[in-house]
């Protein structure tokens, strides 16, 4: 039943053999050494500071939504770094490999990367940036904020939340493993058919891509269900739909998208797996296969996915601007309707990714119009932000700088999107670097919103503000890098440069490609300032401690609880009276009001099972990639067993008695100046399983 594969295979190791380790490639060997040194340093530091116990008890086995959020963000940052290195390699390769006389190094005829290696790099870059950087960063932020904004103690399903995290981590680990064991896919981040079919990609690269994708998309679907259930069912009393903070609305619409579209990509990839493992013909070029079916299914997920990542970004912008304009958000209802509208329209535009396939004119026209219709709700949002700022008392603290610059990228990205949306126009620019520049504007908007959001909510989570001077330099250099890379890229797109070139045939493009390299160097420099910002912030954290409301003018519910947030979030579940609850209380002088009666708090216990499921998910995917059948069976069996065992476990939650809550709250008040040892980043550690405090 299994499809025949060429090349060696053994029952014990499947297709895995020593020859699959790319020890002859100096770039990969260098990367490997870097990874090893980094790992040794990290293990050394963890041991030196005696951090292992904390790492295990308070992080790896945690089900606390704030810590899970932080871990999501850490995965996102690590992968952002990896994807960025890929970008540096692509920029330098293209600048070096121009014209027939350009020199070649390291086995490459031109430049220093062979076409096969270059193709893997751009595939990895796209896959990583969208699935393993942007998505985890945003899911992490939603994880931290949504329960706090609606006055809940945790997510609706804390255990499932940890499972989602570790599945995403397993996917990211699989992408990383492909660097050193075998290859990664070379068919682009969205997968080109029939290139992904076995006859054209007989190696393991596509399998790595496919299973990593699959793990993360299952993780994100489960996470979406969790966030939706949390928003629908866990709101504090008084938190009516009309009072829901705008970021939570954005998360709701984003997760409606993830719930409804991620399953499509799961199916699309499963069909590809059937083709590659069982020899079916869903996407083959003959024998009844249909190439376009894959594109259709992929982009039915793919386009909604881009809105899945942009809606939370819009949500963050909508929270930051009112705080720093010192005015309530203009047009709250319009914002809510626009978010849901964007989510709604996102299901009806996917065909604009293959306008040039030659569908009937009426079809292209239909999708042109729906695509342009996205501009309406987006325009509503832009005007609402503008009116919020209009006549506001504007303060340009770092979060506001990032948020307002994001609006600029929305403009450039949105307008170039509109240009692509005309099917006739798209015939000119499709598959050119113009399209690449378009979606990078959009994704940079998201990156800007994320940096804004991280600066904005960092004090809530960690109790101290990030440093601003190096932060500003990082902002300006990052912005300069963006301009210097992407203005030439738009230009090259108009000049007809197609995307994904490992060799550039036209010497007249050299200057612009060189300018792009300058831009990427500026990006590298900017990263140094980010590191400086983080270092100084950590060093001076004692001076930068903040109270509940870190910015003095923030508005929503998360700002009424302590910073850093205690593990139980709110001492008593808050009663909500207004849309901007924090301002409502502030105006009535209720900032320091303490509860008179405390109640027992019911909390979930930590568990190592999600981590185990993630590890087994990785094992299963790895076994499938290399066709090690016994290992695949073993891991599947163990996954089922763990899930069943967990279902029968008792004592998965505990209660904090009211008097303990009261004591912790009083300790916190007294020790406000000097943080207690227990105030680890992201909240105090949870008590041991089943215990009290």
């Amino acid at each position, binding site marked *: 039943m299994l*499809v025949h594969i060429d090349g060696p295979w053994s029952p014990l190791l499947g297709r895995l053999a020593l020859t699959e380790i790319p020890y002859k490639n100096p770039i990969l060997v260098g990367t490997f050494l870097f990874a090893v040194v980094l790992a040794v340093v990290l293990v050394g530091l963890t041991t030196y500071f005696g951090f292992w116990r904390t790492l295990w008890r308070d992080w790896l086995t945690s089900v606390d939504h704030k810590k899970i959020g932080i871990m999501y963000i850490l995965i996102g940052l690590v992968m952002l770094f990896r994807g960025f290195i890929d970008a540096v390699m692509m920029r330098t390769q293209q600048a070096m490999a121009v014209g027939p006389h350009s020199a070649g190094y390291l086995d490459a005829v031109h430049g220093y990367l062979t076409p096969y290696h270059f193709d893997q790099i751009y595939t990895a870059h796209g896959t990583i940036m969208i699935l393993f950087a942007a998505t985890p960063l945003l899911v992490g932020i939603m994880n931290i904020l949504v329960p706090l904004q609606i006055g809940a103690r945790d997510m609706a399903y804390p255990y499932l939340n940890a499972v989602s995290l570790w599945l995403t981590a397993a996917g990211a680990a699989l992408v990383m493993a492909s660097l050193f064991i075998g290859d990664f896919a070379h068919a682009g981040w969205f997968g080109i058919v029939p290139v992904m079919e076995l006859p054209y990609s007989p190696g393991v690269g596509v399998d790595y891509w496919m299973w990593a994708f699959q793990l993360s998309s299952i993780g994100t679907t489960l996470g979406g269900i969790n966030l939706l259930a949390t928003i629908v069912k866990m709101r504090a009393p008084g938190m009516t739909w009309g009072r829901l903070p705008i970021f939570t609305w954005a998360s709701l619409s984003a997760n409606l998208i993830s719930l409804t579209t991620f399953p499509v990509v799961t199916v699309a990839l499963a069909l590809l797996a059937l083709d590659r493992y069982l020899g079916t013909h869903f996407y083959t070029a003959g024998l009844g296969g249909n190439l376009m079916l894959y594109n259709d299914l992929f982009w039915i997920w793919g386009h909604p996915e881009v809105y899945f990542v942009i809606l939370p970004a819009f949500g963050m912008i909508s929270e930051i601007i009112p705080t720093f304009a010192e005015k309530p958000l203009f047009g709250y209802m319009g914002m809510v309707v626009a978010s849901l509208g964007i989510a709604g329209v996102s299901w009806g535009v996917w065909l604009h990714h293959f306008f040039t396939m030659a569908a009937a004119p009426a079809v292209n026209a239909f999708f042109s119009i729906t695509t342009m219709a996205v501009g309406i709700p987006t325009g509503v949002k832009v005007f609402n932000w503008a009116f919020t700022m209009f006549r506001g008392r504007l303060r340009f603290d770092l979060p506001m700088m990032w948020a307002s610059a994001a609006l600029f990228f929305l403009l450039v990205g949105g307008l170039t999107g509109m240009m692509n949306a005309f099917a006739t126009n798209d015939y000119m620019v499709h598959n050119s670097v113009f399209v690449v520049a378009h979606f990078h504007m959009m994704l940079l908007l998201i990156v800007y919103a994320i940096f804004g959001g991280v600066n904005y909510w960092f004090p809530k989570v960690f109790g101290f503000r990030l440093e601003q001077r190096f932060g500003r330099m990082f902002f300006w250099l990052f912005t300069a890098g963006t301009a210097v890379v992407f203005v030439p890229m738009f230009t090259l797109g108009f000049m007809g440069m197609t995307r994904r070139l490992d060799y550039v045939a036209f010497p007249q493009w050299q200057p612009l490609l060189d300018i792009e390299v300058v831009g990427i160097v500026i990006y590298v420099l900017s990263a140094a300032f980010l590191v400086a910002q983080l270092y100084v912030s950590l060093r001076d954290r004692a001076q930068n401690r903040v109270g509940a409301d870190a910015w003095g003018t923030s508005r929503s519910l998360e700002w009424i609880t302590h910073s850093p947030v205690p593990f139980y979030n709110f001492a008593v579940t808050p009663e909500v009276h207004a849309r901007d609850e924090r301002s409502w209380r502030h105006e009535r002088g209720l900032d320091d*009001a303490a509860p008179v009666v405390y109640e027992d708090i019911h909390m979930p216990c930590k568990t190592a099972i999600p981590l185990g499921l993630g590890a087994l998910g990785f094992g299963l995917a790895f076994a499938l990639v290399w066709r090690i059948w016994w290992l695949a069976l073993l891991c599947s069996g163990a996954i089922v067993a763990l899930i069943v065992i967990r279902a029968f476990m008792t*004592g998965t*939650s505990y209660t904090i008695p009211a008097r303990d809550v009261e004591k912790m709250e009083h300790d916190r008040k007294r020790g406000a100046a000097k943080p207690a040892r227990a105030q680890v980043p992201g909240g105090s550690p949870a008590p041991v399983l089943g215990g009290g405090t």
Partner: protein
Amino acid sequence: MGIHVHLRVFAGRDYMTESNHSTFEHPEVQLAGTGYVAAYVAGIALMGLSLMLVKDHALDPTALGIAISGIAGLAALLQCVLLLHMTLSRTQIWQTVALVLFVPLFILTIGLTSWMFHGLYQRTMLRPIAASQAMAPAPLRAPR
């Protein structure tokens, strides 16, 4: 002033799913009964049936398409009834709402997809199912 309101303690229900009750008493398990097993077996059987139909080229292309769609519809219906218990009761209402909300999406995505392929086949493609009939199935091999 709202001070008294603000300080009132919420003694409402705790919705977090963590609980210390016996697994078999969990509402989801109580609800399941034999329905889950039946839905699973029926799903496998219907999938097996469609696999056989396709594998043996049992019907002509158009009839095959109709048959598979019919079987898929039946499978979906069975799952709705046996697995999801779509009712308007307090416990089930959200499942029902979620599922009903999917319906326009199905119509939208599948409808637009058929419209698109309909035009595409006429303009550019050989009808793939017909093409598959012309060629006998051969084992897929990677090029050497």
